[in-house]
């Protein structure tokens, strides 16, 4: 039981480290350019639709990334 907990914690910490690197890269590569584009989007309805699509798209993407990372790390440690 203790071994299993330690393995889960180790997998989680590795996942967190890789995830942090990906998030920093994402901040600089995507959000930086996205900000300029969004500011120039003057149509409020278009901005509302883009906002919803961006947040749902990011949610699906991040959930897939974290699930994949965890599966890969767990797969390697077993």
């Amino acid at each position, binding site marked *: 039981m203790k071994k299993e907990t330690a393995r889960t914690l180790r997998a989680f910490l590795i996942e967190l480290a890789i995830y942090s690197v990906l998030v920093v890269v994402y901040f600089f590569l995507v959000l930086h350019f996205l*900000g*300029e584009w*969004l*500011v120039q989007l003057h149509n*409020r309805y278009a901005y*509302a639709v883009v906002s919803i699509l961006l*947040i749902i798209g*990011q949610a699906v993407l991040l*959930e897939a990334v974290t699930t994949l990372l965890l599966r890969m790390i767990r797969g390697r440690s077993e």
Partner: protein
Amino acid sequence: MFFPISNAHISPIYLVVVGFLIGILGGFFGVGGSFIAGPALRLMGVHWNFAVGTDLAHIVGKSVVAARRHRALGNVDLKLGLLMAVGTIVGAECGAQLIQVLKRAGNVDFVVSIVSIVVYISISSFMIWESRKTLREGDARGTAKTISQKKKDTSAFRHVTDAIQGFKLAPMIKLPVSGVTISLWVILIVSFIGGLFSGFLGGGAGYIRMPSMVYVLGIPTHLAVGTDLFEIIISASYGTFTHAIKGNVDILIALVMHTGAAIGAQIGAISTQYFAGPKIRLAFVPLPLIGAVIVIYTLISGHKL
């Protein structure tokens, strides 16, 4: 980091950490966490209207992650969630109209503050009484050991729930995932009230909807958490859209907050597997109390957090 839409300078690390904490709460309790996110954004100098709209956008993303994880664990009743979304959206619109009426009367802040303090304290008091009583009775019978035993919910308020389920006004809705058959009108009334409070007090009102799903509809706690998150996706998307049209959403802040919330929401969702329903409900008790403390502080100091 500069956010040009709301014209604010905020550390991305701060936003990620706040998102992470709210994500854990959301994944575990099925709440939006606006009572923390709103003040956290305000503390960084984000204008009130942007704090409300941006918080809603972030709630959408966090709820997508948490609801997907809960769905994988079998904790989402899609049929119930869709039905509740209808009542919530109608209720939220009525709540917003009520605010407009009070604004015209000139005493909106005082009335909203008093109502929210009474509601928050009532929910916490009731839940602490019910969950402790249920846990004491459970201890007398022997506690649940496995995950499936933990998901089989019990409540000291069960006799009232049974009476509500006995209210046979057509159309009756069968919810096989939740194991409940109940009148559509009860579902709509519960979700309407949740929506009304959401429009009236702000935020997603998960602190009202999640307990009412358990105590009024008789949904097991784990399913109430997952289904509430699914329902929040729909109602918060609607709220985000209407706020974005009014220019109240800084989607960049929401996206940065959400990178932390995505991890937190998964931790919260997975953690529910290790706790029985009454323990989740007992742990829920401080959340409305935090909301009450924030409102009391606002009322006394005059600073809107």
